């Protein structure tokens, strides 16, 4: 599998699975996404890095869940709202990302791509490859590899 993330800053066309997080729209390459699940029972892992939300049972497989809000330096998800779990597969290993809600699969054009705006702060900047300028909205392309902290 050739991962577009190998060259993070290059503009790529293709399909992104998009999701919302703290009001913003993000996208990951659709080929990385294995499945999307509703909120799952999490087993916390004491002493783990803060971004590790816990472990989930994915049909008998134990998968680490990364809280993307924490990873991107956003405030914690408001109480009473459940996270949506995006299971991504990287190098044969499944990892899951906790996001606010899932949105559509979007066709993106390399022409609309721009490197991350300078206003993006440090932690998030590391994880965002850039932005696609959609109609009326920016779609931030997430670097999955970095987001799962591999």
């Amino acid at each position, binding site marked *: 599998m050739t991962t577009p993330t190998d060259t993070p800053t290059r503009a790529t066309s293709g399909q992104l699975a998009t999701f919302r997080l703290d009001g913003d729209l993000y996208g990951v390459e659709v080929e990385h996404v294995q499945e999307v699940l509703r909120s799952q*029972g999490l*087993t*916390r*892992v*004491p*002493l*783990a*890095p803060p971004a*590790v939300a*816990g*472990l*989930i*049972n994915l049909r*008998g*497989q*134990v998968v*680490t869940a990364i809280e993307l809000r924490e990873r991107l330096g956003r405030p914690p998800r408001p109480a009473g709202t459940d996270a949506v779990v995006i299971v991504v597969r990287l190098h044969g*290993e499944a*990892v899951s990302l906790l996001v606010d809600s899932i949105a559509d699969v979007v066709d993106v054009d390399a022409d609309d791509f721009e490197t991350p705006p300078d206003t993006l702060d440090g932690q998030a900047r590391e994880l965002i490859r850039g932005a696609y300028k959609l109609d009326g909205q920016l779609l931030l392309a997430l670097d999955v590899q970095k987001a799962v*902290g*591999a």
Partner: protein
Amino acid sequence: MDGLDDIVEEFLVESHENLDQLDTDLVALEQEPDSRDRLSSIFRTIHTIKGTSGFLAFNRLEEVTHVGENMLSRLRDGVLSLTPERTSVLLRMVDTVRSLLTSIETTGGEGSVDVSAVVAAISAAMEDTPAPAAVPEPVVEPVVQAVVEPVVEAVEPVADDAHEDTHDDGHHRARDDGHHDAHDDAHDDAHDEDAHDDAHEDAHGEAPAAAGAPVAGAGAARPEAQGGGQRRAVADSTIRVDVDLLDSLMLLVGELVLTRNQIVQYVGRSTDTDLVRASQRLNLIASELQEGVMKTRMQPIDHIWSKLPRVVRDLGIQCGKTVRLEMEGKDTELDKTLLEAVKDPLTHLVRNGVDHGIESPDRRRAAGKPAEGVLTLRAKHESGQVVVEVADDGAGIDPGRLGVKAVERGLVTAEQLSRMGPQDVLQMIFLPGFSTAAAVTNVSGRGVGMDVVKTNIESIGGTIEVESEPGRGTVCRLRIPLTLAIVPALTVECAGDRYAIPQISLQELVSLDAEKAANAVEEVGGAPVYRLRGELLPLVRLTDVLGLTSDRHDGHVVIAVLRSEGRRFGLVVDRVINTEEIVVKAVGGQLKAIGLYSGATVLGDGTVALILDVQALARRALRTETAERQESREAAAARSVAAEGERQRMLLAAIGEGRRVAIPLDTVTRLEQVRAGSVERVGNREVVQYRGAILPIVRLDRHLGAYGTSDREVLEVIVYSDHGRSVAIVVEEILDIVDGGAAVRSDIDDLGLLGSAVLGDKVTELLDVRAAILAADPAFYAADHTPASSLLEV
């Protein structure tokens, strides 16, 4: 057939496979006669069969393969070139080998299979160097006839024989192809198809008749002759299976077991009897399936042991020692992957045993032992684990020397050492950079090794510990899980989450209600300990390690007594849930890096639970604990300097007549109970046998001039150890552990006392430990502080 031992059986299975490959190789070789790879592979196969047959004394087999090997080696070296004739005789050789193998398989011997013809044919083909030149000539009838015809005649009966015997399509299809190809080629080359077709036909026609004769001898023993339902031929009764396939099968069974657990748990609440019955059946079948699949991966430990007699022998000669190797429990089976992983550590332990453990014959004789040393390997199943012991009857390890060495190397401080029990001292041989060998030999003693052994064993979830009795020998004990995939585990609850602890580390569970816990859990230098049958068990609170807050507020204490590296410690958890077979799942790198979890698992109810890495836990908790303790001690020392008073934890003991004695806790190694009847006398001293050593006793009441009731059945004993020597201090009763810092001190003292103090509202005498110990063992300090002790003795 029953008489066949394992070696022959393995030889047969392997050879049959190799021969099938050989047929294909030989035929392919004709297409590319220059392929050195193929030639080498063929050569190797024949060479292997030859070697083994010579070893197993199958002379005719050896003869055939020997001459075949000669020819092959010349072909390989380019001295001979491959001609169809030569291919044919080689194929004929393969068939002869096969029929010999069949005979060995059915009768246990080479039977009546005649090899002289094929040997002669091969020899002839080897000498027949001008053959390639002769072939193109039209008038080759006599030459070719001579070579080819016997081939055909001899081959066919054998082939038929094999057909009937093995019922293996694969076998004879490969062979038939080979023959036809070979024959066809021979025909083409000879440019004399008609004549040869006749010969061919003839041979075929005769085959059934001819087949009867050579096979008749073996016929009686053939499967058909023995009736329908007996054992399959050796080669057919086993198959080689890719380990990956078994792995994935194992994985699936693991999942099945989990699902089974889940279903059984749900159905347990149901009242539907049919459903309950079905789930019970599922339970049973899943267990059997799991066992069956696990068995496919099991191999007897003899697989790795069988190489050790040689190792011991060679090493013994090298070291000038006579060593006998004894093995117990060869048949003990364990998972193949684990077996592989254990191989090197085990070999290392055996080498160590011979090199360091067993003394030279002279020294053995001097010590009153037989000159021949005995190294014993023991393997057995014990509560879901395999226990492998490597025991020698050598000099044993002297904890004193070991301790001194450890201090020299800076692995521990003298102070730490003084607090360690002999058992703890022994485990230091597993520290990196430790070697007790006086000289570095080429065998061992380079200070690498035991720590590597330990790392390897731990990496497969096993544990290692060492026991030694000076003068009697050393035992290294490995505990290895039966399999890696499915592990029996204890599930516990801590701060609302569940964790799994592999049973392999678990020794026992202790549950204390609030009332008991308040008394039984004591503190030593700020670290909680529990007195488990007299031994001080350091306690580690799982909540502290994990940085969580316990949700248990009723004061109950549940302790899982765990063993790691020969040391015990108690893990305090909130609750014990149950024991359950868990399937170990790897966790991502991020979680591995935490170093506290060996994996995760899915429990019966579908929730994920982390598996605690007990070794890592012990290392982390016990180390930080000692560090903390040290810090607190240092802090206390600093405080006491300021307050001009010593802050010390004291053990309070009654010695009769209402007198109480305080003993500094840091000098106490262990609390024991000894039956009064077991006290023996050496001269006018009292001693007791304790852990294989003679322990001198001092009765504190007599030592301090108090005469308590000495007719007690059980004596309360405080064991004090230092530098490998121990003494037992007998008191009437162990009362309490108190903080000496708050006490009012006075210098009112008496013989054997340092003074007195008010501890726990009562006047308590402070024991001069040194004097008490010297009373029991005047030589106790002789080894290191001679002047001091002589002063005190005055």
